[in-house]
């Protein structure tokens, strides 16, 4: 994976396809039909605790994102504000706008949208979920027009799932270039509280697979720090 330094245990590769266990996150590339059986077999092996046999470097298409990034919320939950903290910890040059305007996209190279609806947040913004979807659609269209790549994050776990949140997920996650989800990777044990699992039903896995979008699974919100470091190829200071 050029531009995406994978220092971790690789147990599947993209177009083959891949799932990479990063230092804190678990990254997975979607499988194409012809190699799905092989991929499932590897995942089963991993589930049996034999992940070490799969240590290998893989070659995938470039998945580098460039700075600066614009971080915003789709659904007006607190997730975007937390993504800002994650970005700061990662050393990412980013601007945080809880509800970005189309003009805010100017000058940004990457758009990071944090998915998840909060009725309280939507109320504070003076919009309902339908208005939010309309606004976010315009934001995505503008980003595409400006050739800005998009990372979609869901980092608030299972407690940020539900009809409105899922509407933001099913509408916009398929349109992203990369997914980061705090939740369980398929066929792996989720050791944290089930309410912290944003992918217990495999929704993100399904979306990633059907749309061939690379996905990183993290167990804690802080795990997104290392994912961002890798995606943006951020070098440690000093």
């Amino acid at each position, binding site marked *: 994976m050029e531009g995406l330094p994978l220092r971790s245990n690789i147990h599947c590769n993209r177009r083959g396809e891949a799932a990479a266990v990063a230092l804190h996150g678990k990254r997975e590339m979607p499988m194409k039909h012809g190699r799905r059986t092989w991929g499932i077999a590897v995942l089963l092996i991993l589930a049996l605790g034999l992940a070490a046999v799969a240590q290998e470097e893989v070659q995938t298409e470039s998945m580098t994102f460039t700075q600066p990034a614009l971080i915003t919320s789709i659904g007006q*939950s607190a997730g975007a504000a937390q993504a800002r903290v994650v970005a700061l910890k990662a050393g990412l040059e980013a601007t945080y706008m809880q509800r970005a305007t189309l003009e805010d996209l100017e000058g940004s190279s990457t758009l990071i949208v944090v998915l998840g609806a909060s009725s*309280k*947040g939507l109320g504070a913004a003076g919009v309902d979920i339908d208005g939010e979807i309309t606004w976010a659609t315009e934001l995505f269209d503008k980003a595409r027009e400006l050739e800005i790549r998009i990372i979609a994050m869901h980092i608030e*776990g299972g407690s940020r799932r539900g009809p409105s949140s899922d509407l933001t997920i099913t509408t916009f996650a398929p349109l992203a270039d990369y997914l980061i989800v705090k939740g369980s990777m398929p066929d792996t044990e989720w050791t944290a*509280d089930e309410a*912290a699992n944003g992918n217990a039903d495999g929704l993100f896995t399904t979306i990633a697979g059907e749309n061939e979008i690379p996905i990183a699974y993290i167990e804690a919100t802080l795990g997104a720090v290392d994912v961002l470091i890798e995606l943006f190829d951020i070098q440690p200071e000093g």
Partner: protein
Amino acid sequence: MNRAYTGLRGLLACVVLVGLIGVGAVAGQVETSTEGMVATAHQLASDAGAEILAAGGNAVDAAVAAAFAITVVEPNASSLGGEGFMVLSLADGRDIAIDYRSVAPGHITYEDDNDEPRYGPESTCVPGLVAGLATALEDYGTMTLAEVMAPAIRLAKNGFPLDEGLQTRISDAYEWMSADPTASAVYLPDGLVPDVGSNLVQADMAHALELIAAQGPKIFYRGEIALAIEAATEGFLGYSDLQRYAAVIRNPVLSTYRGYEVIGAPPNVAGATVAQALNILETFDLAGYTWSDSGAIHLIAESLKVASADRLPYVGDPDFFEVPLDTLLSKEYAEVRAGLIDPNSAIFPTNSVPAGDLEAFELIGAVDEAYSASTTQVSVLDDAGNAVSITQTLSSFWGSRVMVPGYGFFINDELHNFNDYNPDNLADINVHEPFKRPRTVIAPTIVRDTEGEVFLVLGSPGAGRIPSTVVETIVNVIDFGMTLEDAIRTPKFCSRVSYKELRIEGGYPQAALDALEALGHTLKTSYGELDLYFGGINAILVEDGVITGVGSFRRDGGASAP
């Protein structure tokens, strides 16, 4: 005692097991016993109360233990910096209300209108919770503060698994909390909302609790905590304001409903409104109706609407005004007020309901003195028949958002509950005044059966929805014969003169909603099922010697028995 300790061991084992496997949200929401019961908004607070009952404490001991514990496990909703109202029904026949509402600081004047910020130091009132709970324990309990506060201290010091409800409240507060280093150090480790199941330790709060347990309320009102509150509020709450605070023992509001005795909290909270609504509703026959019939919903909603019309002109701080309770609570007055209700048409607009003309009405008659005695009920019941009902609050979630550094608790934002000064309404009895209690709608309530035995203990959060939720739950049990679990779980609605529409929780049949609109109600139906907006009843029901406790389904409540 052996059985009690065995029960406690079993209970603790269950708590540990539940914590280990992380499925505590449902377990214990409905509990039965013959030995006593505690029902609160959080299983761990109920467990704290049950622990005290098992150790030989009475209902007051257990209620105080649970009340302190709930400030730890639900710090967004109540706090050492908050306030409350307690109603007691003691086995020796005494009925008591303890008013530990917050009071305005001494520098406040009537001209201080609601331009003051909703949050921050200038939104606060002098907190009453510590004084109220200490007064209850000293006058009616059997144990020491140190004994009953031990569970709360343990929970604060050792931590507890963060539940989804509190995590949501932290997430909702993220914007302001992340900018507050004092609060974020506790609730936003690494600057992020902690995961459900993570251990939440509140060391500074534990320190404050330990100080109070060791030195009593004087450390809070005259000691180092008072000084810290003064500093945290930038002097808005002065040391002298805290020094003069005292909880007040009052007579509870007493009324009847279809032969049952109803014991509620007196002004300036909403016990009188609940009693008035039930008095009015009693003039109608609900037999043959079910909870989802539009006819029943209409009559209950209109009764609540008419009852609430008297609240603004007549219910104020009883230390400042003489509240005409005898008239407001009389059956004769209820008959007159019920005459405003048309079974075939809703009163619209809602605020067109006039307040009653009490001066004219007093010529008709006053309340039967037999009903003005004392009896009460609570969310704790012991095996001797003592019952305690507490509703305590910070006003808004997280109150003023002012956390006292070094002591780890939030201060209330009750000041906004006073009315704007209006030169065109000089008769307003809820304007700002020094040391006055702002009017609110909390309604801890107890119902005794026709034999005079404690039958139902209940109360709810939910701001303006509280009287509706309490009345509907009572009606569900008495008129519709529901179990307590069903009575609480059943969808709720809210009706009052200040709401332009009838607010309806999800779950009602569409046919009922259509029929209500045909009666002239304007409906607001944009709420989910079991929506937190409609409160969170935690209640106890006694029937045939079996005590059933139910923690709120709208708020991850829990019940626990010794």
